[in-house]
């Protein structure tokens, strides 16, 4: 067993591109679920809109990347309005069903052969649409330390990505500690009480949906740019559920929780995978029990089990405060 390699892979994943993507998705969900109590199960749809806006604008319509990013943000606001107007009057569990449906609609339309020409069908879009971003890359060499390893491009994405996360978290911190943020928390705790104070709950819920959705779509930008490709099946319900796992692991309704959750989630995911993989190939685990190709499935079984256990035994996550989050309230 090559423990150095395992550590290198796990640590690189823990602060790597995927961690940034899931952290951004979870920060958005934190706004929705953690602070406002909205069960948005269509977060993958927001990431998809962000990613596809960039890829389609640049590849199919030859728009500059920076304009494409703006288009992505506008599109995610439109999606939030489309989703929010019909559904935010419904109870939490209905909202969950409708948003998960909306996320699937986006994915299935994106992968359909009907819109093959613009959206790329089930293969998605691959191209150099991140060229303008990578042209700015100051790193000529990658990072190759015993414990960390990034290619020059990944290093650039990671540095910019974490800077972005820091800015967004700072804004989030300002927002949730403002009167506006306190109102969201009040909606989460008791909608009727807020309404009795003459506040338009519906309007605030839509604002929350937009804010979290835009943050999610920024995660989509990172997803698309880091790979220079978008593939529809990456934006399925699994993405949303893993983002929830990340959020709940860290602790919902805590500003820094999505970061902690994403770092731990990806560290464990890659660590378990690499350990199992090496244990299988070194013969510590017999082939009839776990094949090399089955390691990935064990990993995701552990994610599912972990989510259940967290929710049952520690719903406030690692850093959350049980009193802060009234998850047990009849929504």
């Amino acid at each position, binding site marked *: 067993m090559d423990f150095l390699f395992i550590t290198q892979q796990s640590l690189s994943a823990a602060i790597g591109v*995927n961690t940034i993507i899931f952290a951004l998705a979870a920060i958005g969900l934190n706004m929705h679920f953690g602070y406002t109590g909205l*069960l948005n199960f269509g977060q993958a749809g927001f990431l998809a809109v962000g990613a596809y806006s960039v890829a389609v604008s640049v590849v199919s319509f030859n728009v500059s990347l920076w304009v494409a990013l703006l288009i992505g943000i506008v599109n995610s606001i439109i999606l939030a309005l489309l989703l929010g107007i*019909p*559904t*935010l*009057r*419904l*109870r*939490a*569990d*209905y909202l*969950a*069903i*409708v948003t*998960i*449906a*909306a996320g*699937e*609609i986006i994915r*299935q*339309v994106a992968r*359909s*052969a*009907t819109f*093959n020409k613009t959206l790329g*069908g089930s*293969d998605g879009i691959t191209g150099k649409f991140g060229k303008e971003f990578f042209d700015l890359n100051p790193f000529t060499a990658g990072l190759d330390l015993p414990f960390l390893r990034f290619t020059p491009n990944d290093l650039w994405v990671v540095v910019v990505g974490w800077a972005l996360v820091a800015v967004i978290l700072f804004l989030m911190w300002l927002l949730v500690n403002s009167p506006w943020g306190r109102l969201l928390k009040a909606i989460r705790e008791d*909608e009727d009480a807020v309404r009795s104070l003459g506040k338009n709950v519906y309007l605030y819920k839509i604002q929350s949906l937009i804010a979290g959705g835009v943050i999610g779509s920024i995660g989509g930008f990172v997803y698309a740019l880091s*790979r220079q*490709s978008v*593939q529809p*099946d*990456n934006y*399925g*319900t*699994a993405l949303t*559920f893993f983002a*929830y*796992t990340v959020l*709940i692991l860290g602790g919902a309704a805590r500003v820094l929780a999505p970061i902690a959750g994403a770092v731990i989630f990806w560290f464990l995911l890659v660590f378990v995978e690499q350990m199992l993989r090496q244990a299988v190939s070194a013969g510590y685990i017999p082939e009839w029990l776990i094949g090399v190709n*089955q390691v*990935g*499935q*064990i990993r*995701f*079984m552990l994610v*599912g*089990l*972990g*989510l*259940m*256990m*967290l*929710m*049952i035994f520690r719903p406030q996550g690692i850093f959350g405060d049980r009193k802060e989050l009234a*998850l*047990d*309230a*009849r*929504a």
Partner: protein
Amino acid sequence: MSSIAFTLLTSLFFSAIATSASAATPTYIQGTLVDSTKAPIAGVTISATGPNNFSGESISDASGKWKIEVPAAAVYQVSINQEQLPSGQALTDPAKAIIKANVISLGFDVTILFPIGPGVEKATDLERSAQLLADGLILALVIALAALGLNLVFGTTGLTNFAHGELLTLGGLLTYYLSAVVGLKVFLAIPLAVALSALIGGYLQDKFLWQPLRRRGTGLIAALIVSIGLAILIRYFFLFIFGGDTRQLPEYAGQAGLALGPVSITPKSIITSSIGLAMLVIATLWLSRSHMGKASRAVADNPALASSSGIEVERVIRAVWILGATLASFAGIMVTVNQGVSFVMGQDLLLLIFAAVTLGGLGTINGALIGSLVIGVSIQLSTLFIPTELKYVGALVILILILLVRPQGILGKKGRIG
């Protein structure tokens, strides 16, 4: 939905696949043309175009095989000359006349499948409507069987169960293992699989997971997220033991359809649908007539009051779970017998089940049935107007539109609006 797991897995870690194979390796895009009875089709021209003005052609040989050598790793457009297909045969999905072949790396051949069957597009719209209506009613039955259990569990315990789809997969997989591995006849394997599903997915699941959670006072949203975790755990466990492919039962796999007027239905479909319909009717009667059924509605209405008037709430909930698992597993078996079983079968149907339940009204029995009928039939009939691949999108759009005008669903009560 089926490939989420794999693509997520592969794309996250292996987004850059090594292109180390030597350029001299001949690489082919290839395939075998067969009709719906697996008989080879010869003499059909397949052509491929790609970057750098590449174009190549191949004519299928006596065994239906064709292959085109390609010069570089790229995405190629592979098309079939439909006019050369024998009469009575056509592409079952007209959108597949041109297929993208992604040659990832030289040395790795890519196999392309053109789905060919009895020409559907030659049927008139009226005949197609009749066939689609029949298909839609069968789909509605599958959805209704699953939706009834989901709705009952929701009604009595408030749980929105995202792991309900896995009950369908459980029924299907048990039938597969009992028939293909243990070697039982399919008609024996099915009742056994239903009984086992009721035991594992109904009795044991409630006894060892949900009842303890209710005792702990776990909240509804927390329980909902637990069910998501459970669904992920079980789905990947199924993938772990069963693999990612769709498999057919050893018997009745390639059954020919019976022509009933304009509609063609296989005997196995008629038999499974009849049993399914009977189960649905019995379950509905049981719920409306029997003591236990009435008790379940009392629990749904007001658990505390039901309990104080002598109803054993926990026993009622257990019965509801067992009934739900029984019906859902048979829904899964209907799909398995007619289309084969895969580990994502339940997940694929879950959204439609939710759509049906939401449409009809969460927690109402008749609502679940009406919602299923609307969703099942509209999914199939919508293919008259929209491409087949977008039929689920159509159903989900209908769901959202109906919620706009009638947020409580067709038969639901106002109470659900937040």
